């Protein structure tokens, strides 16, 4: 009995075994690696190396030959411009070991390379009559001892900073192909007393803060118009608001309603006119002719023209204030977004705006097309940050912060620098 059972079991096992296929082992996956190739005959191995890390271009602003105060102004302006640009790292003058007196207006590349400099700015300044003659040169250490950029300016002593800004813009142009925005100005409104607001102007590097003369006690929403004139919405004696130009005692436009904002760009003007509890945006010629409403009811404010004449504004037509471009909503996150400003970023045009996040405001950017996922946050957990503006070259962003002043950063919100201890609203950057 036992033998038969064993045979039966063996026979059945043989049948079962024949019925199932063998299980093949799968080869383990392998990660591809970069390869080196050795071409025949040449015996030269070739390797492909992807791009390295990004680093600020290290530049040295050498003391200028000439008057000590002039030298201090020039190097100080250069240092501030280059630092704010987010393109350069200005080296500490204490680290300079080069013998500047021997070098003169040239450089010894090896000497500057030893202190880590990749670029050097040198110059001299001397009075010629009533004018100050300033000569500035840019050297790139890897390019040798000859200057790659040389400029000379004859300016009044009071306009020295302006000349340096021009040179700094040329430096940026030499490196990037497009000039910088140094020397431009921003305008904004700020509280000057109980129930009173004034218009202010400040240079892009935080210098030259000054109040512009306004006819009215309440001056709001300034904008730079044709010819560099500054326009603003001003309250008049009868309780209405009109459009004023700095320097003009009478309103340049008084619409049938309250004028609460203005924008210029692309050869056009946009005007915010409020009446019967609603505000609409009218677009026409910069002289105020041919104005036609481009919005239809609700609250529509904060117009801003893009580089191709597109109009961005804030509208609550979707239920809460959001950013719109030519009638199309572009901000799809958050419940309260406002104050759009165009930014001609070299990597692509973007729209900056401020968004309310709980009890604070922060600065954001979004593609003009409002593509999904394009919204980026530039500030967070850094107080309340409001009213962004973008430099004409699109490389710098300015905004007010409850951290105590006017700040600038790059387009990603990095390299934040406080440039002035002043806060306000409706910040606009000239030329953008």
């Amino acid at each position, binding site marked *: 009995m036992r033998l038969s059972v064993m045979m039966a079991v063996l026979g059945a096992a043989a049948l079962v075994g024949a019925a199932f296929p063998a299980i093949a082992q799968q080869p383990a996956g392998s990660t591809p*690696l*970069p390869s080196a190739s050795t071409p*025949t005959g040449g015996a*030269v*191995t*070739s*390797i492909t190396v992807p791009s390295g890390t990004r680093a600020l271009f290290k530049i040295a602003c050498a003391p200028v030959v000439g008057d000590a105060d002039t030298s201090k102004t020039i190097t100080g302006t250069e240092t501030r411009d280059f630092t704010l640009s987010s393109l350069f790292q200005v080296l500490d003058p204490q680290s300079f070991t080069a013998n500047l007196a021997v070098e003169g207006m040239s450089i010894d590349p090896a000497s500057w390379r030893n202190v880590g400099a990749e670029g050097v700015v040198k110059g001299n300044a001397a009075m010629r009559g009533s004018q100050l003659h300033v000569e500035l040169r840019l050297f790139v250490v890897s390019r040798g001892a000859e200057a790659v950029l040389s400029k000379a300016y004859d300016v009044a002593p009071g306009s020295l900073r302006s000349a340096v800004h021009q040179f700094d813009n040329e430096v940026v142009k030499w490196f990037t192909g497009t000039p910088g925005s140094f020397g431009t100005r921003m305008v904004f409104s700020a509280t000057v007393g109980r129930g009173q607001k004034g218009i202010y102007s400040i240079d892009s590097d935080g210098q030259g803060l000054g109040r512009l003369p306004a006819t009215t006690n309440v001056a709001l929403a300034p904008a730079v118009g044709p010819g560099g004139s500054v326009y603003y919405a001003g309250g008049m004696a009868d309780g209405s608001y009109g459009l004023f130009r700095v320097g003009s005692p009478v309103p340049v436009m008084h619409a049938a309603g309250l004028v609460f904002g203005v924008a210029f760009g692309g050869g056009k003007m946009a005007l915010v006119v409020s009446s019967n509890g609603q505000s609409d945006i009218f677009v026409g010629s910069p002289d105020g002719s041919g104005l036609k409403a481009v919005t239809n009811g609700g609250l529509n404010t904060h117009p801003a023209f893009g580089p191709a004449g597109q109009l961005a504004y804030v509208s609550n037509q979707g239920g809460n204030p959001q950013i719109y471009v030519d009638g199309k909503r572009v901000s799809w996150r958050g419940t309260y977004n406002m104050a759009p400003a165009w930014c001609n970023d070299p990597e692509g045009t973007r729209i900056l705006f401020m968004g309310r996040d709980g009890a604070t405001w922060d600065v954001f950017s979004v593609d003009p097309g409002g593509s999904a996922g394009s919204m980026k*946050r530039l500030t967070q957990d850094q107080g309340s940050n409001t009213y962004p503006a973008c430099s004409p070259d699109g490389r710098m962003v300015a905004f007010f912060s409850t951290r105590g002043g006017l700040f600038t950063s790059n387009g990603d919100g990095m390299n934040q620098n406080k440039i002035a201890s002043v806060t306000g609203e409706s910040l606009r950057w000239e030329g953008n």
Partner: protein
Amino acid sequence: MAARLAWKPGYEGDEVALGFALAFALHAIPIAIILLRVYFPAPNVEEQPLVAQPVIGATLLKLGKPIDPKRLPDRFVPRQSTAPRQQVTASREEPVHKNALVDAGPPPPPDAKDSDIKKLIAKSDPFAEDGGKDRPVEGFANGSDAGTEMDPSKVHAGSVYAAQVTAFLKERWQIPTVISQGEVNRLCVKYTIAVDPRMRVWFVQQTPGRPSGNDLFDDSARSMLQKLVDDHTALPEPPPEVETSYRGQRISLSLGDGCR
């Protein structure tokens, strides 16, 4: 009188019967299945014409929580890694202790075929043939056309070492931010360096073999390589499998994301 031994079976009758029954069953069942298949084959299923069905739209899945439209996005802040650098192991074996493998030898000269023909012609051999007919291709189907190495272990070691050299150079190369990221993604520059037997870089081509079109980009790559020369910095030690390709040799470097 011889005693007659009585035969006594080892199994009982019922056990023998059960054994026969099981053996019969084991053989009869497969035979029955085969016969059934032969005499009653499975009916041929006619191919049905394809019927167009409506396509159901599908969306790509993305991991993560659904986006709350009321909530604003967070700020992206790049942070510098504090982790130690990972070193790529080029070879599991100590280079000095590993027995040298049989080398494939130097690559054949590029005109080897012509030389053979010339030799044949010189010998006036009337039977010399031009090897023009198709012959089996040597090497691996996924290998490089210019590759000469036939040993997979060497090829693998070479790839790992190339990755090590790539990481070594990449972490030392700093590209100035005055060049926009968009432009960096498009640029590629080629330089040739030479290393001594101790793997120290002693020569860097002063003008690029193929410039990228952006002088600053080219300068940043050359400055990185020149610093290796100035500081007498050695490249990582190559594994023995490929050291003849690197030690004391020239190396052509294609630098930049635009090279890929």
